[in-house]
């Protein structure tokens, strides 16, 4: 490549358009995402905890949705849980591993909340309420359209978010206890 060619290329590159309008409006997708329960700025470790919970409960997370044979009956989940009406259509259901993990975390929730400051407790409760509202609304939509893959994916996302919040509460209180110990 000669110096002349190099210079010609540089000049041409500077003339390239840097602002390009997308062919479609990307805002609706962004709006949907930012309307979902917002990650709080509790502590960076909570984001890691949220990731860990998905790893620790790999079997749970992966088996959120268990493919059922058509000859198998639809499995009913525990009625005392928020996801009692959960439905992933005619062929899928929440896995028992997820239910166990959630039950364990839920059982500890009140105890863990008591250890938090009022502000943190309010934020946790607000986050959980948002998630529960989402689950309720998605389930209502699924009743009308039980095999809608998009709704099923959103429901799965909402359950993951709930599990993430519950796990973060545990991480919060452990940190509180560590500080008290010192």
């Amino acid at each position, binding site marked *: 490549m000669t110096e002349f060619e190099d210079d010609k*290329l*540089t000049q*041409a590159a500077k003339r*390239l358009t840097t602002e390009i309008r997308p062919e479609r409006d990307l805002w609706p997708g962004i709006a949907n995402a930012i309307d979902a329960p917002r990650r709080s700025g509790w502590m960076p470790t909570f984001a890691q905890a949220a990731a860990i919970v998905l790893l620790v409960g790999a079997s749970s997370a992966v088996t959120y949705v268990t493919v059922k044979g058509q000859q198998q009956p639809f499995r009913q989940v525990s009625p005392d849980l928020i996801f009692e009406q959960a439905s992933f259509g005619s062929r899928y259901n929440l896995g028992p591993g997820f239910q166990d993990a959630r039950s364990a975390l839920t059982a500890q929730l009140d105890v863990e909340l008591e250890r938090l400051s009022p502000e943190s407790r309010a934020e946790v409760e607000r986050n959980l309420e948002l998630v529960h509202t989402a689950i309720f609304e998605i389930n209502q939509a699924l009743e009308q359209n039980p095999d809608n893959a998009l709704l099923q994916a959103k429901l799965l996302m909402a359950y993951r978010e709930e599990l993430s919040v519950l796990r973060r509460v545990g991480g919060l209180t452990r940190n509180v206890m560590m500080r008290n110990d010192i």
Partner: protein
Amino acid sequence: MAALLTANASDYSQYMVSTSRDAVADEAAWIGQAQRSDRRAFEALYRLHVDKIYGLCLRMTGNVSEAEDCTQDAFIQAWNKLGKFRGDSAFATWLHRIAVNTVLGRMRKSKREQDRIEVLADTAPAPLASNDAGDLRDLSEAINRLPARARHVFVLHAVYGYSHDEAGHMLGIAAGTSKAQLHRARRLLSQQLTQQGFEA
């Protein structure tokens, strides 16, 4: 939470009534409002900057659908990180950095994804062509065919004017590596364009 199911109707027009003279002041106001979780102010910021961010993502990925995903991810990241924006740099620069990180993060996340982008870049109709002047379309298409690292350096340095230090910092490589990749990019581009009788 209903927005999980349906997109809310846009109602940002009241945020977009200013003239360009007031754009800087408007932007600062929108940033402040968005930092207080005003979604419509953030939408105004999106409308103001989306062409810049999408342009960067499209240049870096060479693929329309990837660029759309990266743009959306970048703005979602920006929303989540808005509280940390202190105005040390221009908001556009801050967004640029987030967009670059988003592109790189997505490509690192899955090598298969990266391969797919490369393949698509080689075979898909040139998505950038209509945005550039006629004599630059060949260059745009040639940039799309560059290997990822060389393309990223060329786009940031030669197209967007970042220094090698800045480009290297954004890409997580040394400035010397950035220079080497730029040289490689220019050599590959020259080879491609010579074959096509490029005249800029």
